[in-house]
């Protein structure tokens, strides 16, 4: 920019100086013409003293420093400075005097250091010169000599100085202004928007999608900024949508994973129980043959034992009783594993539970048990074997009463629900206020012969048989237990097209 300012100043300076020089040259030409016309008459008439006097007077005119007339010989003939008369003239004057060629005015520095303009012009002969009596010149030569006028160029120097200062100042101010304006324009329209854009991109890249580029101009940069802002808004919206999708997908994956895990556990549990059932059935079946022998022969032996042999008869009764006990266990095992379908009717589960409770309440061990019923009204009928369902309900309630040591609260609720596979189901929930089932026992309660009751009190077949019955009805038993708080058994039964109950159940 400084170079530009300097160059601008130099060009301006040279241009202005050229105009000044031209003006001074014109002045010199004008002065030269005046001198020439003033002296013409004296020259024609050969008045040499008059010429010298005129020159000496004319040199007093303002700005004129010296006037010389140079002869064709190249020597000064007349001079406003008498000491120069007879001296050799300068080259330009000699050329002008010699062949009459016009010489450009020269600006030069005088001996005293002042700047002067030396202008030489040929003195051309006119008609009077060829006809005058005084001094005759033969017609033909281009020049009879030269008139040299030296005028002060002080005006040039001072003007040039002023001009130089002016142009430099002007150049400096101008270039500063231009530079400032360019800087402002670059800053306003390029640097600042670019900085803001760069900041915006940096913020966007770092994840700050709320950042808006603060450019509201109507030009291309403004358009770019608003497009960028719109893009950030779109990205934010897409990111929110993606995050929502991701969350939804994650929860769906979690849900499915849970379902698969539960289904797998159920399948494993069901398969385990099914294989246990098959094994139990096989064992039970095989045991029945020798038990038939024991039972038959014990009876035959007892029949032919004399009535007075009381001890023998009692011993045989013990054999018969224990064999029948074995047969009972085996029947339980076979019940757990039985495959045959029982006779099914439309059963009102509320009524079935009511009748189960009324049977149990007559027994002394149920006297300190408080039953609370919360039955669903208009519970759909379920297509089921009512005897077997009865067995299941009785078994679960008896277990609860045993667990609570014959003292506590049993809440029984029925409701319509949805099976895990989407079918319409009803369920009965039997919850006790007992001590709960320990976590390590919870997975085993449906296994045959698993019992926590004292020896001789439980066979460990009640729940397996109940489970088998409900499974054969296409349902499931779900147990939730919290140690110290109680246990709940949910018996879930699919309706399989059962109709709504005809009467409301209180």
């Amino acid at each position, binding site marked *: 920019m400084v170079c530009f300012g300097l160059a601008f100043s130099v060009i301006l300076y040279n241009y202005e100086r050229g105009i000044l020089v031209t003006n001074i040259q014109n002045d010199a030409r004008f002065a030269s013409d005046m001198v020439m016309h003033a002296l013409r008459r004296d020259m024609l008439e050969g008045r040499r003293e008059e010429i010298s006097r005129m020159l000496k007077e004319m040199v007093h005119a303002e700005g004129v420093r010296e006037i010389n007339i140079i002869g064709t010989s190249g020597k000064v003939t007349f001079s406003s400075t008498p000491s120069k008369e007879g001296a050799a003239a300068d080259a330009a004057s000699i050329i002008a005097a010699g062949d009459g060629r016009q010489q450009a005015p020269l600006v030069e520095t005088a001996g005293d250091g002042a700047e002067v303009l030396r202008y030489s012009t040929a003195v051309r002969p006119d008609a009077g010169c060829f006809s005058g009596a005084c001094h005759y010149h033969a017609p033909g030569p281009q020049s009879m000599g030269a008139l040299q006028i030296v005028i002060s160029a002080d005006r040039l120097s001072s003007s040039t100085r002023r001009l130089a200062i002016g142009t430099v100042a002007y150049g400096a101010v101008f270039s500063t202004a231009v530079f400032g304006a360019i800087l402002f324009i670059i800053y306003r329209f390029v640097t600042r928007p670019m900085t803001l854009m760069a900041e915006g991109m940096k913020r966007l890249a770092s994840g700050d999608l709320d950042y808006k580029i603060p450019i509201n101009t109507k030009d291309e940069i403004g358009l770019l900024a608003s497009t960028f802002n719109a893009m950030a808004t779109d990205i934010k919206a897409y990111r929110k949508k993606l995050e929502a999708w991701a969350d939804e997908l994650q929860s769906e994956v979690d849900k499915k994973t849970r379902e698969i895990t539960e289904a797998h556990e159920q399948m494993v549990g069901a398969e385990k129980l099914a294989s246990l059932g098959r094994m139990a*059935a096989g064992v*039970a*079946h*095989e*045991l*029945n*043959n*020798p*038990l*038939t*022998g*024991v*039972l*038959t*022969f014990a*009876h*035959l032996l007892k*029949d032919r034992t004399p009535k007075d042999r009381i001890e023998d008869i009692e011993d045989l009764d013990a054999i018969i009783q224990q*064999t029948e006990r074995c*047969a009972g266990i*085996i*029947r339980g095992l*076979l*019940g757990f594993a*039985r495959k*045959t379908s*029982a006779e099914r009717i439309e059963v009102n589960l509320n009524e079935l539970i009511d009748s189960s409770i009324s049977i149990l309440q007559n027994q002394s061990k149920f006297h300190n048990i408080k039953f609370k019923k919360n039955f669903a009204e208009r519970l759909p009928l379920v297509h089921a074997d009512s005897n077997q369902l009865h067995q299941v309900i009785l078994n679960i309630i008896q277990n609860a009463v045993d667990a609570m040591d014959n003292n506590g609260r049993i809440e029984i609720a029925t409701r319509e629900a949805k099976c895990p596979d989407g079918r319409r189901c009803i369920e009965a929930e039997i919850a006790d206020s007992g001590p709960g089932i320990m976590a390590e026992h919870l997975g085993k309660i449906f296994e045959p012969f698993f019992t926590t009751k004292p020896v001789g009190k439980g066979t460990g077949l009640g729940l397996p048989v109940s489970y088998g019955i409900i499974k054969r009805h296409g349902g499931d038993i779900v147990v939730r237990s919290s140690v110290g708080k109680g246990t709940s058994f949910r018996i879930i039964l699919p309706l399989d097209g059962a109709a709504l109950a005809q009467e409301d159940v209180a």
Partner: protein
Amino acid sequence: MSRARILVIDDEDIVRRCCVRALGPEGYEVDVVSDGPSGLSLLGSSGYDIIVTDLKMPGMDGHEVIRRILSVAPNSRIIVITGFDTDQPPHGAYAVLHKPFTPVALLSAISATLRSK
């Protein structure tokens, strides 16, 4: 009235012996075999009032035995004795008796079947 003739088909020796010991003293004529084909060949040579058969036997099972008996002697009275927990007698059988049974239970089943003749 002549003594009722009973054929017992069971692969278990102890069960066959139980039947003989429970029914014989009560005046029944009891024949026992350990498998279906033997029972069918006996059936061809002599008539029985009641046939008592097990269900689970190696080779020919009880269901097949019942089907074949009824194909040669459609009026046969068949009682099934089984260790399985079945409620209904298999198709073609008159009654089902679950093992382990007592002599009284066996005699009751036999009498009931004979009375239904």
